[in-house]
């Protein structure tokens, strides 16, 4: 069996399997939690949170070493990162609330300053006698190489807890992301839900530190929700789509990186997520680029068809090559530009509908109905058969079509 299939089927060793499952769960939780951020248009807050974890990791290491313990205890490091991420998040909110700086400036300030501080602390640790092999740099980009069993277990358990928390909080968080004012009016405590949402984002960030690294973890919070948005217009579906995209990215990414040496786990997971995003951007059914191009082509086709038929009804010559191609391919016009019987019949119908619209505008002064005239909407979709019959009565019935062969 080839290594990738082995890793995908969880046959590549116990740790690799645990990492794969953990990455999948983490991706799912990140995608779902990130959806709420994305819908509240605060996607980049996660950037500040992620960068703000670094000083906490460093300080936790120093504290644990000073207390005589092993500085590399993952739970301790993650607890430290959670504390400093919380401080960073609080600072972003404090700055946006009390000063006139906008949120993006606050985010940028917090992420760069905390990251700088973190780097300073890392260089301090390097000079400590026990800090030489601390390996805290692995938190920058994540690393699964040489991951301990306990670490993998922490990621798997943390990922499951985050998924459960998302499930429990899904209703109030959906409400708050879509319409905070309505949520407040209907008795939801918006501040508390916002806090829970941020707590979830922070939890995902902290759990993902070891696996994906603090620079790339925000990709898991941002890319899956954006991808999911292409596939559905329904709020309660976006979350699960985002979760699924995130989960697949995490699981497949971890499997690919386990299948060969020197494939950085975090980067591969992000690139898988980006690949899914790219495919969705291009090929998603309603909002994708391909769908938009098709829609445009279809619209263009209908406009040319109609203009050609109108010209035909007025017995004017058609010069536009695209119009001729449209009419020709529907068998409405012959190769030399002479209308066929079917073409004459269609032209007559379009001319009659135009007259019907004229009458409709005289009878109905309601712009809500006649305003729907755009030349392309069939009149049958706007007026009832009775009304159309009334228009026809005023016009005096369709004129007979003069066919070439005669009947």
């Amino acid at each position, binding site marked *: 069996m080839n290594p990738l299939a082995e890793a995908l089927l969880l046959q590549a060793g116990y740790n690799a399997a645990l990492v794969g499952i953990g990455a999948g769960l983490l991706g799912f939780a990140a995608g779902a939690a990130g959806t709420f951020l994305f819908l509240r248009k605060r996607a980049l807050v996660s950037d500040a949170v992620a960068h703000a974890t670094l000083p906490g990791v460093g300080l936790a290491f120093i504290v644990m070493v000073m207390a005589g313990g092993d500085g590399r205890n993952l739970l301790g490091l993650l607890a430290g990162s959670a504390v400093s991420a919380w401080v960073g998040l609080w600072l972003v909110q404090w700055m946006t609330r009390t000063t006139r*700086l906008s949120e*993006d400036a606050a985010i*940028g300030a917090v992420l760069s300053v905390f990251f700088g501080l973190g*780097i*300073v602390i890392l260089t301090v640790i*390097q000079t400590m006698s026990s800090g030489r092999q601390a390996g805290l740099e692995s938190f920058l980009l994540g690393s699964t190489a040489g991951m301990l069993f306990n670490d993998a277990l922490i990621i798997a358990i943390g990922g499951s807890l985050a998924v459960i928390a998302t499930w429990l909080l899904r209703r109030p968080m959906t409400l708050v992301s879509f319409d905070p004012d309505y949520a407040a009016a209907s008795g939801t405590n918006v501040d508390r839900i916002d806090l829970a949402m941020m707590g979830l984002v922070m939890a995902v960030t902290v759990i993902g530190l070891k696996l994906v690294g603090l620079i790339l973890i925000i990709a898991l919070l941002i890319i899956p929700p954006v991808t999911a948005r292409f596939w559905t217009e329904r709020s309660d579906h976006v979350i699960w789509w985002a979760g699924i995209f995130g989960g697949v990215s995490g699981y497949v990414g971890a499997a690919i990186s386990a299948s060969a040496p020197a*494939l950085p786990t975090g980067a591969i997971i992000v690139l898988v997520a980006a690949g899914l995003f790219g495919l969705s951007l291009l090929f998603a059914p309603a909002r994708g680029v391909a769908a938009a191009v098709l829609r445009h082509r279809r619209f263009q086709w209908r406009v040319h068809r109609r203009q050609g038929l109108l010209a035909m009804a007025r017995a004017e010559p058609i010069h536009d090559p695209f119009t001729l191609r449209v009419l020709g391919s529907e068998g409405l016009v012959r190769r030399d530009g002479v209308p066929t019987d079917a073409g004459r019949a269609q032209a007559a119908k379009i001319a009659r509908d135009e007259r019907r619209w004229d009458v409709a505008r005289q009878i109905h002064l309601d712009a809500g109905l006649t305003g729907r005239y755009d030349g392309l909407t069939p009149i049958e979709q706007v007026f009832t058969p009775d009304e159309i019959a009334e228009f026809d009565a005023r016009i005096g019935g369709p004129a007979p079509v003069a066919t070439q062969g005669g009947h």
Partner: protein
Amino acid sequence: MGAQFVQFSLTPILIGIFAAIACALPGNFLVLRRQALIGDAISHVVLPGIVVAFLITGTVAAIPMLLGAAGAAIVAVILIEAIKRLGRIEPGAAMGVTFTTLFAAGVLLLDQSDTSNVHLDVEHALMGNLESLIWFRAEGWHSLFDPVALAALPDELGRIFVVCLLVIALTVFFWRPLKISTFDEGFAQALGLPVGAMGFGLVVVAAIAAVAAFDAVGSIIVIAMFICPPAAARLMTNSLERQVWWSVGFATLAAILGYVFAGYGPLWFGGQNAVSAAGMIAAVSGVILGLACLYGPHRSRVGAARQQADA
């Protein structure tokens, strides 16, 4: 404060100051236009740019690296716009998608290519290497007038100095249109100013400053200097002219104090090794911003006092 200072500290401090000013100037406009995080995005995509440049040329020479980084920054800006328009996605999320993806691609390329014999790694890209840019040939202040010693100045100093001058010149030259289009885009359009081109030009200048500064000091300082000094300056005054001067002052102060604290601070506390100067400069700029947030004369939003009274 004699020969040793000139040899070991003068050039890093100067490079830090020039880099800080080159980033802070466009940063003023980015902060006012609420595009502060463009700097963040640019400094992340620099990594894939330099890795691709390395893979093509096979060396770590400065010029190809700079070209690669600038190319990557432009690709990123175009991608962000494309995703925003084609997918109808809000700017923040489009930016997040773009720069994380490009950064991940850079990390993967770096891990896959053989860089064992050259100095090219992610940490270097993030933290820079300000401490190592020393002036070997200097023997004291008089070396400033010695052409032989001057020729041995680190190349980074010359590059960042030129870029800093370029940024200053562009800011002065385009001052009026920049100011008008930043504060009132509609009015600028009515005057016939090319608003779209101004916006794009600003981002390109920011990218040039980011890339040149990155070469010397790493990307942390770049992000910090784009945002912290202008944001702090914004809380000091209501006039754009004075804000720009404040930001230049704050940037310079952060660069000097940061370097001094990083180099000499640990010695005061009985330590032996210096800490990261780039990180310390970012931290000092954060302290300056924090003080401005607490005590800046124009820190509160217009009408904020009334809102509080109502509540």
